[in-house]
């Protein structure tokens, strides 16, 4: 009794094999895409690691990378199994592996979905990390002579120029940090001494910003010192001047940048996840081939065994009709 017996002509089997081969390679390609997306995200986060306070966000790209690699292996293996299950002799090899393989596939699909969702949910953690990272970077901006922090000035300047932003939430953040090192302050000058004394912690604070906050869109040369003092500059009103410095905070700029990257990656990963599921649903031939063949295989095996048994019996001495015939009659 063969349940759901499916007969395949040779041409149909070849077509099926070709289709399975193609699907197999498309699946491997999606695994490669996942891997490269994870790698790209990791490189992007690595580039700005100095303004991020913790590196826990790295688990998102790491997850994508591992999922991508696992996807390649699983899909490659799956393709091989599918390809060989049309050939009954080879299929026996894969029988034991099939069940754990299917469990693995379901687990992997779940991981892909989790990866996609993580890309969307990371925003809050990223914002917190950027807030702390940028605050520290601005605090250590002046420490170009301290080992370990000597490149922070350059990093912050390049960041502000590239992302067209200034400060943490806005340019006013620079008014609360001393961003000019004491090495370049003339302590004998009364102006400097007054400023230092007027501050509780002895910091040299001023209403000025670094040059990297200057906007290229401004029609007038950049005003970076005495930004809030209208009388210090001719024809200048601090409240209405919009184009002089970059208005956006770097935290917002970086957050937007990373959110857009992760949203695109999340979308692509979701599409891949959907595609994989459609692949498994729309191509039940492979697994169902398995079950179909197994039944008929057991049947076939039993019938073959019976035939062999009968074959042996056939040539037993008492059944052979020609046993007593003389060689002369042949």
């Amino acid at each position, binding site marked *: 009794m063969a349940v759901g017996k499916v007969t395949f002509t040779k041409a149909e089997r070849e077509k099926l094999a070709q289709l399975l081969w193609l699907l197999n390679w498309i699946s491997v390609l999606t695994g490669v895409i996942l891997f490269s997306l994870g790698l790209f995200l990791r490189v992007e986060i690595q580039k700005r690691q100095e303004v991020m306070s913790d590196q826990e966000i790295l688990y998102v790209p790491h997850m994508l990378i591992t999922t991508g690699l696992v996807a390649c292996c699983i899909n490659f293996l799956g393709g091989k199994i599918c390809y060989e299950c049309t050939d009954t002799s080879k299929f026996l090899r894969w029988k034991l592996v099939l069940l754990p393989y299917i469990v693995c596939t379901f687990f992997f699909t779940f991981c892909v979905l989790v990866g996609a969702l993580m890309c969307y949910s990371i925003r809050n953690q990223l914002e917190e990390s950027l807030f702390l990272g940028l605050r520290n970077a601005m605090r250590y901006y002046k420490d*170009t*002579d301290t080992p370990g922090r*000597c490149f922070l*000035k*350059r990093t912050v*300047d*390049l960041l502000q*120029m590239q992302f067209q932003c200034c400060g943490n939430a806005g340019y006013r953040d620079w008014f609360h940090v001393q*961003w*000019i*090192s004491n*090495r*370049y*302050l*003339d302590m004998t*000058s009364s102006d400097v001494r007054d400023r230092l004394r007027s501050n509780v912690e002895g910091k040299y604070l001023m209403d000025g910003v*670094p*040059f*990297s906050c*200057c906007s*290229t*869109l401004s*029609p*007038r*040369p*950049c005003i*970076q010192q005495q930004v809030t003092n209208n009388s210090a*500059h*001719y*024809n*200048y009103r601090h409240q209405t001047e919009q184009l002089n410095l970059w208005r956006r905070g770097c935290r917002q700029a970086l957050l937007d940048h990373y959110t857009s990257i992760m949203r695109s990656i999340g979308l692509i990963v979701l599409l891949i996840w959907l595609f994989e599921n459609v692949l498994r649903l729309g191509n039940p031939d492979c697994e169902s081939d398995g079950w179909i063949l197994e039944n008929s295989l057991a049947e076939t095996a039993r019938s073959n065994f019976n035939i062999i048994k009968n074959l042996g019996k056939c040539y037993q001495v008492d059944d052979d009709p020609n046993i007593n015939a003389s060689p002369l009659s042949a």
Partner: protein
Amino acid sequence: MVVMKMKFPFEKRVKLAQGLWVLSWFAAVAGAITFTLGCILKTELRKRAEVMDNTDVHVVPNTLMLVGLASLGINYFAGKICQDALDAGRFPRWKTFLKPYFATSCFFTVLMLLSVVMSYVMKGSLENSLKIGLRNGIRFYKDTDTPGRCFQKQNIDRLQMDFQCCGNTDHRDWFEVQWISNRYLDFSSKDVKDRIKSNVDGRYLLDGVPFSCCNPSSPRPCIQYQITNNSAHYNYDYQTEELNIYLRGCREALVHYYMGLMNTIGAGVLTGSVLVCLRYLQTAMEAVAGQENTEIETEGYLLEKGVKETIMEYVDPVRMYSHLTRLRP
């Protein structure tokens, strides 16, 4: 009188065909790369069109693109020909095609070598064009209210930041130009009036540079005003301070950048060698045609007759054709 005769036994012919096939594919890839480089160079030149006075230099990327495409086509056919070369049955169908093919390929190879030479010759023209373009850009930096020039400030600022350069030849070019508009100068201030009076043309000149000249790698906050005045800033020496502002001029930076792009054209040499090998293969195979034993030793050569006679052979049909078209009306 045969030019550059060589003997080709069967194994050598086979090796020649195989080597040529690989070489022609490499050369095809090189042709594709040359075309891409031409496209990139053209895009880059157009991006900075505002600081260039004329577009003469565009002839280099145009030639590169043409040559890259031609090289791709030539080497593709070379690969196909040598695939069929060793098969005496398939080779004859290429026979009528080969003569015009060699003529066009030689023409394009010569053009390719010319473009390599041209890119070096064009350096002077590019530099001149940039000199004038940058000078105008710096002069009109302050005219952000004049239509047609209102984007000069933005362009020059972006250029100086992207290429890490300052001014035309160096940062002192900014000392000779008034780059602060009169709209933002307080004419009632004594300091401003003194400066304007001290200048012959009545311009407001100062020893300061725009903020885009500032170098982010400097350990101290940027000093952009009173650069030559050591006493205006604490712990500052103008002569020894190298990291404060960019010391390189934008003309030099841009020329460097474009010459770097143009220097990656050496791959054109590959196509020349492909053509030479193909010619040998063709002539060697011609001797085999019609023979029963295809494994005999044959002779290959570059030119059947001398150089002058071969050129006449190619030019004569063209001359005849032009003569005929002239006679017709």
